[in-house]
Structures are given as C-alpha cells and as structure tokens.
C-alpha cells in the first residue's frame, strides 16, 4: 500500500480524472439498470409482485394477459388441482378515464379483495368498498390521489380512490384495483350486452409445502385450455419483456465492458510508464507480489471512488426524475455493480501485473538517469 498511496497522492489530477471517468461509466451502468428495472416494474409490476403464487392464463394467449380469455368456470376446475389452496378470478380492462379533468389511460383490475391476487399490502388508505378503488401509488403524479374520483369513459362510472398499493403497475399506465364483482359491473357498463364476461387470469394460492412452478405445471396438465405459471415466469413471459430486457442487457453489457477496458488499459499505460520504477524496486528486493498488490490496491481505490461518484450522480438523477416515472437508488444494485466492476477491473489489471512480472531487475543496473 505504501507506494500505491504515495503514487495516488502525487498524481491526484491523473487519478481523479480517471476516477471521474469510471464514475461516469458506473453512473451510466446504475442508471441504465435502474431505468430498466423501473420500466419493467411499470410494465409487469402487477404480475411480478402479485399476491398470488400461480397465475393461470388461457393457453393460446401466449402469456399475454390482455389476450387471455378464461371461462369463469375454470376457477372451480383449478381448485380441484392438488396443491391448490385457493383460486380467485382476475379481470383486467384497459380503459380511458378522466381524473382531475385530465384524460388518461387506466388499467382496471378486478380481484378478490381477500383471496389470491388481492392488492396487498395497502401502503396507505384502506381496501376499496362499492364504487371505490385503490391505485398503484406511482400514479399519484398523474393525479390519482386518495380522495380523487376516476370517471370511466364512455360509461361515466365514477370510482373514488381510497388507498394505494406499491409496485403493482401494469402496461406502464395507471393501475387501479377493485372488488371483482364491482369490476363485473363496470365491464357490463362499458360493454353492454356482452354474452359472457371472461376472466383475464385465475389467481392461485398454493399449499406451503408446494413449489409454484410445479403446481403451475400441474394446472396446465390437469385443466384444459389453460397454462399455469409462477409469478417470475409469468412476468418474464409477458410479450415485450424479453425484448426490453435483452436491449438493456446489451447496452449494460457493452458499458460494463467499456468500464473494465478503460480501467485495464489505463493501468497498463501507467505500468509501462512506471516500468523503470518497478524494475528498480524489483532490483532492490521488491517481490512481484508486493508490486502487484500495490497495483491492485490502486485499482480497488479507483473503482471505489468511481462507484461513490457514480452513486452520487445516480442520487442526483433520482431526485431530479419525473414524478410520473420515479427512479430510486437500489442499494443492492449499487453494491452488485460495484463488486462486478471491481472484480473485472482487477482481472483486467492482471495484464499490468504480467508486465511487472516480466520486468527484468537486471535492467536497473544498465539504466540511464
């Protein structure tokens, strides 16, 4: 550490600039990951964080909730499958509505308020009664606040907001939850004369000693025309999720590679520039391990500084983010990104270590000043 710290201190500007560059790249990594998580949360939060263990789709819907049409009788059939403790209907309608005189899109979910698929937990307010809904709290920026009234178009049905749930948004639009029987009423008002009111999903609660994926497969096998999926599979299987995830993974992967290469090449350049010093130190008895340790220590310090800088930038970005698309700092993400950058930067530093190990101490005796 002795020479590592002295070198850092005497080349403050050089290392600060690099820490800044690494910090910007780490910020980009964190921001892209946060953006991706928020976007996906807005897209499939209602599925991913659903209180049901298993979600049952129409088998031809290809895991697209809005294309899934299930006969209400299926709920009873699902209940007969071993491992299923409870089953309840879920209906979803995407409508146009006004709130606070503003026209907006609304995903309206009808659920069993006390069964699987219930909006749980209510983070503020209470469960909805007749003519009432709870909304995902991210919609408050769009005017969906407790006490406001949502007016559905074209029926003119009015629903009062009485509570909030968290991370339960669907299809990136404001999402509201009400009792399934009230949702049926809304459906009939919006689509009068409909011969049947199909369910979108069946929400399933499984026995505590069962695995969701296994029960899901069992439902698929035992109930005709449906596909049972655990929440993770249902969320990741939603059409579009794969494309979004892959796009972000590609961008994040490229950025990650750039960070690691920048750190690796920088230290390789520094090593070549300081080779004379390394040769001298080896000649006077410094081991390769000692010199490599100094180099690795510098990389660790640099990446940690970059990570702090990148996290501060992310905090700034979240504070300045649009309330309708709120970004937040995920400590676990920061730690994961930092550790990943650290590990791979250290690995890229092995190029420099190899260069140091090859330095011939005998060259010290043949030098110029």
């Amino acid at each position, binding site marked *: 550490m002795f*020479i590592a710290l002295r070198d850092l201190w005497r080349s403050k500007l050089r290392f600060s600039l690099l820490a800044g560059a690494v910090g910007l790249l780490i910020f980009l990594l964190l921001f892209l990951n946060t953006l991706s998580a928020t976007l996906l949360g807005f897209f499939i939060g209602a599925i991913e964080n659903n209180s049901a263990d298993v979600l049952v789709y129409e088998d031809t819907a290809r895991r697209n909730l809005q294309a899934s049409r299930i006969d209400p009788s299926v709920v009873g059939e699902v209940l007969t499958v071993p491992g299923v403790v409870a089953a309840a209907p879920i209906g979803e309608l995407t409508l146009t509505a006004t709130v606070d005189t503003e026209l907006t899109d609304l995903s309206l979910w009808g659920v069993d308020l006390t069964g699987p698929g219930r909006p749980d937990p209510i983070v503020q307010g209470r469960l909805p009664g007749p003519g009432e809904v709870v909304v995902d709290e991210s919609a408050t920026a769009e005017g969906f606040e407790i006490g406001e009234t949502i007016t559905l178009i074209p029926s003119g049905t009015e629903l009062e907001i009485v509570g909030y749930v968290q991370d339960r948004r669907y299809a990136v639009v404001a999402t509201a939850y009400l009792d399934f029987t009230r949702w049926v009423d809304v459906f009939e008002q919006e689509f009068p004369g409909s011969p049947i009111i199909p369910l979108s999903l069946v929400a399933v609660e499984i026995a505590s000693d069962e695995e969701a994926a296994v029960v899901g497969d069992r439902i698929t096998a035992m109930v005709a025309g449906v596909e049972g999926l655990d929440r993770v599979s249902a969320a990741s299987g939603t059409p579009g999720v794969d494309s979004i995830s892959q796009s972000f993974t590609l961008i994040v992967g490229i950025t990650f590679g750039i960070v690691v290469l920048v750190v690796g090449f920088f230290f390789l350049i520094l090593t070549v520039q300081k080779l004379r010093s390394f040769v*001298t*130190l080896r*000649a006077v008895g*410094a081991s390769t391990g000692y010199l490599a340790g100094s180099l690795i220590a510098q990389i660790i310090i640099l990446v940690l500084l970059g990570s702090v800088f990148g996290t501060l930038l992310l905090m700034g970005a979240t504070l300045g983010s649009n309330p309708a698309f709120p970004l937040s700092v995920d400590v676990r993400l920061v730690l994961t990104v930092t550790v990943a950058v650290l590990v791979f930067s250290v690995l890229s530093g092995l190029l420099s270590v190899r260069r140091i190990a090859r330095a011939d*101490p*005998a060259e010290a*005796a043949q*030098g110029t*000043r």
Partner: protein
Amino acid sequence: MTALTVNDVTKVYGSGHTAVRALCHADLELSDNEFLALLGPSGSGKTTLLSVIGGLLSPTEGSVTIGDTALTELSKKEQTRFRANRVGFVFQGFNLVPFLTARENLTVMASISDAPRSEIEDRTDQLLEELGLADRHDNLPEELSGGERQRVAIGRALVSDPDLILVDEPTASLDTELGTQVVQLLASEIKSRGKAGIMVTHDLRMVEYTDRTVRILDGELLDGPG
C-alpha cells in the same frame, strides 16, 4: 570473515555464433569491512560482475556466496528476498522512484525488507542527516540536484542495513568535485558501519578511498590498480 566469495564465475550472453563472453572465470574474495574498487574501461564486464554478485543476473558457470549464503543456489524468489535484506545497490543511474520523496525512497525499504518499520524509520532519519539531506527529505527526486539524488540512492542502499553494498559508477554523472565528495561520503558510510562494499568505476582518482583495487579487462579480473 569473508563477506563475499566469487568462485570461477563465467557469464556468456547469447549463444552459438552470437555468444559474447562478458565474464571469464572470475574469482574474487571480499572481507567484512573491506571496500573494494573494481576498475575497468567501458565494456570490460564491471556492471555484469556487479549484477551477478547482487543476484540480478545468473552466472553461466561458477558460484557466488555472500556471507554464508550460496546466492547462486537460491531460487529467483529467494534471491529477490535476499537482495531486500542483505545487499544494497547504488545503481549507475540514480534509479530513484520519481513519485516518492527523498525520505520515502528510503522508507519504502520498510515495506520491502524484513526489517521492522521503526528500525528503518530511525535509520532513515540518521542517514538523511549524515548524507546532508535532512532539509531536502520532503523533496521529490526531480527537485533534487544530481549529487543529492546520488546521496539519496546511497541512503537507500544502506537503510536496510545490508551486509554488502554494490555501487556502480557513482561519479558517472557528477562533476569531479561532487563525485569525489560522494565517494568520500560513500566510503565513510560503508566503513563506519563495518560493511563490505564494491565500487565499480573507471575513474582512477576514486580508488584512493577504497581498501583495495581489482582491475577487470575483457571479463577477466586482474589484481592491483595497474
């Protein structure tokens, strides 16, 4: 007691038609508290011999023993450790670490050698004082004159209290007056500590500060100043 034994050392660079014999069956003994001048023209093999003695180069044939340790029988890793603790080098180029101050160029040996840090720190302060660098201890090498840099290099060679000091052309980049002062200082530091030392030089005027002179010509050692 014998501080150094060089036994029938030959060093050949390259092989086949391009082989160059830099040292030819060199034999040398050095006692404790003895300061020896190795005198020879450029290309005579002085630096090669010094490098072989210090374990920086392996001889093609022969052996080097420092104190009771057969240096040539040690592994590269063991030789590195041996150099850190038992051999002090003053290179022809000052070879100071540019991002360390004069003082740090000495105290860095605390993290390289096995000597306790407090011991190195105390010896550093003493050496900087003796070498006339007490008020320059906080300067980087680029802020020091040639003579001061050379004195820092001498300090670094002595700070880990090695048994053998190897000095390569200490006056090469200094004017006569400064060169003489540096060699006087070097001789005084080596003798006052009871160490063995070898100084490579091509400057005859410097041999008066040593106990004995050995000449080297085309890789062969010849006794006396010639």
